[in-house]
């Protein structure tokens, strides 16, 4: 097997080379070189995933393997969950780079290096077994993301979005660092396994404070309520392929960071004390909030961004439940969501490329000439709602199978976000009903990001979206994939096995077959969700022709002024909310442990 260090080192080296030669290299070369690099990462990461399913092993940089119980250097633990996410990150980056082929404005040649650095940071983040290294990759990911946000600098709005994104996420990074410092002071270690062993089941005030700082920091990235304000601002301004990476994987990696530290450092204090209920509550609130805001939005990218808030909330909820019931459903859901959301963003990008707008009222009826995009968009909307045959539906069934009450939250969030996407589809592609309310956010028009003057839609714009949608369906019927995810999720929460890998170098994993699953009830539920979403979308589109007492969607769609005013675009507001949120998480943690 090639060294796992290549997953980080090769993209970084190529990024430096591309940046150094940016004046000399023609655009095609930069495109080709970066796609090949991302593709190389994809191949290597999938090889490692297959390998890790049988044998999880550690890799020590500089050959500084642990001496006795003392970890000297930084290591990767090549577990199946981490490797799988690295594969997903590489896949999305490859597709995003394919989408940007030739036409996307590359900002003077800076776009490709930044995308590759972003990929390297994500790969390092999911694999590292060192707490401070986790912070370094968190920050590298953030800085590359801030820079990518500023690709379109011709208007002040993108800069405002990027600024808010940068300020909130930097504060989050310092919260994480504070948590790291507290843990280092009491354990004298930075390796996740070593800290976990030193702490054991200890959960005194210091551990709880460190827990709060770390989890808050990562939840800011994961856009949990009330830390989510930066996300729609950043998504509305980033170019389409960057949005794909933000929504598809970066936000979820924030949650993954929280999961990683919970499963290792706090393994002894999480499930026994009920601290994981924190994730349940935070996830449920975020899911509902995101869904409401999503339905009220008429700027397509912001609409999709709020749906990401909602779905990441569902994943947070799934993690809270999964600490006791297993994480198979969560990982299936995460993969399905990444693919569907990426496909939707690609479709929105096609609209932006063709019509120079992503505003729902402005596009009313104009999408009729794009039947393929229409199909992709509706598939995406149904996928988000958790329609049958999509990976999200099978993930959801496994999550809610153990906790039926959670089905209510999933139903609400899935149906409302799916309906919002479908509503936009009905208006744009079929020209049904009225154009929809014209509000402020729908008037902030997107800047064109492509340089092709003819607005023709080439194969490289369609192909990524088709691959994403196809993948979200195909994977749900592939039994080997489900079994692999099942083994990976069992391994993820197994702290003794993790520590064994760190101290002894490797561990053999037993092959597990996912328990068989009755499909009739979940299938019915999924069908009901899809129909409900479609129904709500139709209702919203035609409600103005109905009698007055049936015009509820107006309230959902346009009149949530006081709530929407919270999304103020003011960095001070966002940081004030962050402070309150951090204090609340802390209070909840102390209250849960008591």
């Amino acid at each position: 097997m090639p060294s796992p260090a290549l997953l980080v080192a090769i993209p970084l080296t190529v990024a430096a080379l591309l940046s150094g030669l940016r004046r000399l290299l023609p655009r095609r070369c930069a495109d080709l070189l970066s796609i090949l690099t991302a593709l190389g990462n994809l191949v290597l990461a999938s090889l490692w995933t297959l390998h890790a399913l049988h044998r999880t092993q550690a890799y020590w940089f500089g050959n500084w393997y642990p001496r006795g119980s003392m970890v000297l250097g930084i290591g990767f633990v090549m577990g199946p969950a981490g490797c799988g996410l690295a594969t997903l990150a590489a896949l999305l980056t490859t597709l995003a780079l394919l989408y940007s082929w030739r036409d996307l404005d590359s900002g003077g040649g800076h776009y490709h290096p930044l995308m590759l650095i972003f990929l390297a940071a994500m790969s390092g983040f999911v694999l590292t077994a060192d707490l401070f290294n986790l912070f370094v990759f968190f920050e590298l990911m953030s800085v590359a993301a801030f820079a990518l946000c500023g690709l379109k600098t011709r208007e002040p709005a993108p800069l405002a979005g990027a600024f808010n994104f940068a300020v909130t996420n930097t504060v989050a990074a310092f919260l994480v660092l504070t948590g790291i410092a507290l843990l280092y002071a009491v354990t004298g270690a930075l390796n996740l396994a070593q800290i976990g062993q030193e702490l054991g089941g200890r959960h005194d005030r210091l551990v709880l404070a460190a827990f709060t700082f770390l989890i808050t920091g990562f939840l800011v990235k994961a856009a949990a309520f009330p830390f989510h304000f930066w996300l729609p601002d950043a998504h509305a301004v980033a170019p389409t392929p960057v949005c794909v990476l933000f929504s598809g994987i970066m936000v979820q990696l924030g949650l993954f960071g929280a999961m990683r530290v919970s499963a290792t450092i706090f393994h002894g204090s999480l499930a026994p004390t009920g601290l994981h209920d924190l994730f349940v509550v935070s996830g449920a609130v975020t899911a509902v909030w995101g869904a409401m805001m999503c339905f009220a939005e008429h700027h397509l990218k912001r609409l999709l961004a709020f749906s990401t808030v909602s779905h990441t909330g569902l994943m947070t909820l799934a993690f809270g439940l999964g600490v006791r019931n297993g994480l198979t459903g969560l990982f299936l859901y995460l993969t399905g969501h990444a693919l569907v959301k990426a496909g939707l963003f690609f479709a929105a990008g096609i609209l932006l490329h063709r019509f120079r707008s992503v505003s729902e009222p402005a596009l009313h009826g104009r999408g009729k000439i794009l039947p393929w995009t229409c199909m992709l968009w509706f598939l995406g909307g149904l996928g988000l709602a958790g329609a049958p045959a999509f990976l999200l539906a099978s993930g959801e069934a496994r999550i809610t199978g153990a906790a039926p009450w959670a089905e209510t939250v999933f139903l609400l969030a899935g149906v409302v976000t799916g309906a919002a996407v479908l509503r936009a589809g009905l208006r744009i592609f079929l020209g049904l009903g009225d154009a929809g309310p014209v509000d402020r956010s729908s008037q902030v028009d997107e800047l064109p990001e492509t340089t092709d003057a003819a607005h023709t839609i080439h194969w490289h714009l369609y192909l990524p979206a088709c691959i994403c949608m196809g993948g979200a369906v195909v994977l749900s019927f592939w039994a080997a994939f489900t079994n692999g995810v099942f083994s990976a999720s069992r391994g993820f929460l197994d702290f003794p096995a993790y520590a064994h890998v760190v101290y002894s170098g490797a561990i053999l994993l037993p092959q597990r077959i996912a328990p068989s699953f009755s499909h009739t009830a979940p299938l019915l539920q999924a069908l009901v969700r899809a129909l409900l979403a479609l129904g709500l979308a139709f209702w919203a589109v035609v409600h103005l022709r109905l009698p007055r007492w049936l015009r509820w969607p107006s309230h959902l769609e346009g009149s949530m002024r006081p709530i929407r005013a919270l999304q103020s675009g003011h960095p001070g507001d966002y940081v004030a909310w962050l402070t309150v949120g951090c204090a609340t998480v802390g209070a909840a943690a102390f209250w849960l442990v008591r």
Partner: protein
Amino acid sequence: MMILGVGLLALIGVSALVIVRTDDVTNQLLGLSFYGLLFALMFFLFQAPDVALSQITVGAIALPLMIMLAITRMKYHSESTHQNKAAPPAREARHD
């Protein structure tokens, strides 16, 4: 030496508040430079010469310099747009 350290830390605490309470950015910049020097001093005092060196070069010089250049650039921008009677930058992009 401990007493010196305690005094220095107190000074840092006070200057932090003063700097964030200062509204004029140029004054704030001067404060930040001084604040960076305090940190360099503290790093020397607490046996961290490596960090002290990078703090002097980055925190007390490079960082304030960058901020100063940014402020100057903005000042030049407003002066030249004023002189050229150029149309004020895209205000109409706002939708309040």
